[in-house]
């Protein structure tokens, strides 16, 4: 028993060391920073004085319309992105599941490939494809009579959603595909024997059987969306698009620190965002946990 405890201690120490250095300490430092503000006097040319301001930075962040609007953008993003992602990834997975073995392997790789491209590169490529004077896509659309400005206030959200879809569709398709492959083949055979066609099997048999992974992908995507940063940042820098520097809460914190030199505000915004993520994760864990427990009981 003692040997086991010692082994556990030894094996876990590296984890806890790293956990402390890269998680606990930075979070603690951010909380600490968020309680201070740099104040100046006179015209402001006499240097700064760091003053303890309690929760002022938190009220400042929450009182800033730009910060609150960031959460609104996230909500809109989730409402548009998640249905498209789920429908697209599931549709593709169902197609693959019923395709020929050889085509299957090819499409699986081809669809997954965009996920291997780093987000920043993907965003740069898409910015090029969105820019009216450069993009063959925009030119083709215009030739076809469709004028759409990807950088306009109405176009900004679809533009970012499109990049995210391109990056994540294949990844989530693989998850669904794996779930579909795990379905007991005898169930499908039984359905065929009962006279169900391919459509009927897909929607009445396969989809209900992979519901759990659908829910899981949806919930993780919502939480992942809280960190939306790279793609909109690229759209913000150097395009003159309607994506503002405070478009998402993460970008708000970044701008507060690096454009406004207000580290206290940036830290407060980050802590608020982290709290939101923690709360959401907790809710998600509870929900999936309950689902699992319920399932076990009925099984």
């Amino acid at each position, binding site marked *: 028993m003692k040997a086991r405890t010692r082994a556990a201690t030894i094996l876990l120490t590296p984890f806890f060391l790293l956990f402390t250095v*890269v*998680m606990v300490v*930075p*979070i603690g*430092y*951010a909380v600490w*920073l968020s309680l201070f*503000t*740099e*104040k*100046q*006097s*006179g*015209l*402001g*040319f*006499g*240097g*700064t004085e760091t003053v303890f301001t309690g929760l002022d930075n938190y009220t400042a962040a929450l009182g800033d319309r730009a910060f609150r609007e960031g959460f609104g953008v996230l909500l809109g993003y989730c409402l548009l992105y998640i249905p498209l992602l789920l429908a697209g990834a599931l549709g593709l997975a169902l197609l693959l599941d019923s395709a020929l073995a050889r085509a299957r392997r090819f499409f699986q790789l081809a669809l997954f490939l965009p996920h291997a491209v780093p987000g920043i590169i993907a965003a740069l490529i898409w910015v*090029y494809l969105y*820019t*009216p*004077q*450069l993009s063959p896509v925009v030119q083709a659309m215009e030739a076809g009579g469709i004028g759409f400005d990807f*950088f306009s*206030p109405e176009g900004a959200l679809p533009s970012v959603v499109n990049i995210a879809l391109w990056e994540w569709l294949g990844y989530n398709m693989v998850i669904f595909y794996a779930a579909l492959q795990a379905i007991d083949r005898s169930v499908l055979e039984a359905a065929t024997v009962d006279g169900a066609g391919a459509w009927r099997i897909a929607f009445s048999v396969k989809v209900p059987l992979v519901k759990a992974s659908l829910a899981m992908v949806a919930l993780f995507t919502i*939480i992942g969306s809280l*960190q939306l940063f790279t793609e909109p940042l690229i759209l*913000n*820098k*150097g*395009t*003159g*698009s309607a994506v*503002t*520097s*405070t478009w998402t809460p*993460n970008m708000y*914190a970044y*701008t507060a*620190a*690096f*454009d*406004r*030199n*207000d*580290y206290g505000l*940036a*830290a407060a915004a*980050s*802590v608020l*965002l*982290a709290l939101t*993520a*923690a709360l959401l*994760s*907790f809710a*998600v*864990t509870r929900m999936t*946990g309950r689902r699992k427990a319920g399932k076990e009981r009925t099984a």
Partner: protein
Amino acid sequence: MTRSWSRTSRVIAGTATALAVLTACGGSGDDTANSTAKKPNGPVTLTFWGWAKGSKDVVDAFNASHTDIQVKFEEIPSGTAGGYAKISNAVKAGNAPDLVSIEYSSLPEFVSSGALQDIGGEFTEADRAKLLPQTVELTTLGGKSWAVPFDAAPQAFFYRKDLFAKYKLQVPTTWDEFKKAAEQVRKADAKARIATFFPDDPTTFEAMAWQAGAQWFKAENDTWKIDTTDAATTKVAGYWQGLLDAGLVHKNASFSPEWTGSLKNGTTIGYLGASWGAGVLKGTLPEQDGKWGVAPMPSWDGKPASGMLGGTSFAVTKDSKQRAAAVTFAEWMSTTEAGVKARIASGTSSAFPAATALRPVAKKAFDASYYGGQDIYALFEAAGASISPNWAWGPTTGTTNTTIKDHFGKITQDGPGIADAVKAGHDATVAELTKRGLKVEG
């Protein structure tokens, strides 16, 4: 349960990464900056960060001609493209270089955040007298001297001589004429425009307001008076809104691929920039050799008038232990013949020195054949003299400009316009100054 927990912590880990980025940034700086202080024998080593064209050549020339001071140059992205963030973070992290490039517009912000040292002791009255007074004023804040001005950046209008001739256009001298010329350009070629509105770059608009006589930031006693919606600014905003609404100018990000692309294929035939733009055009469009001309900025009443667009100064960071050597090097770049010559002879810089006596040197060093041998330095000289001395920059340029840029991006045909963007910038500036505990009116 353990599995669910690991999911939760993974999510928290992701968010914490964002925090870690915020708190740990600046580590990318050069740690040797301060640690190499004064070796008893041998030269002093300085580090210098900048992005202005020709900086590398200047540093090489300095190192070749000096034995007591050696400079290590690192090129950083231009200020608003991330350079300033890099500098502030390095200062915060305590590993900043000794000398940094800062544009006049951002200098007050760096001074007020305590990132710089007062260099009044080394950069004396006699040195300052060699420089254009407007630039000295922009680097003297709260009665102290904070940076060595390098260039004045009077505005200028660059245009395609060949296309102006082809379309039978007069070079406009007033903004009314400019608008008429813009209409003629579009009539001659439906795809072509006379110039570009840069939605990503508030500084170009600010220079226009400056030219029109606006005064956004005024320091009176201990109070900042902020007024970005005065008559002059309103006039400029209305004028540019009119050009945008009528589709008389392109709307592209500055120095973006679409902007250069349109210059290359001749669908943008003019550029409202500043003195340093001459070197940029030459470097960006070498194949259009001889096709460009430079004209004074159009003005409201036809009399010469100019704002300043950009313009660099050199400042010593807070923790540098080599202030004297850093100022010596900065002065060498700004006020000596060899320094100015080395930069301009690099072929990429058309900087207009703040040091009045060195302008003939710059003129001689700049190969103006790209502009058909036009005496562009004489033009900058006249424009430089017409820079309105009333403009000052406030200590919140980061906030002001980011806010205006964000709102420029939202401009649509029937939606918010330039005036709304400028108003938003005003409100954000006032709020920011208040948050810092300063007295504000506006």
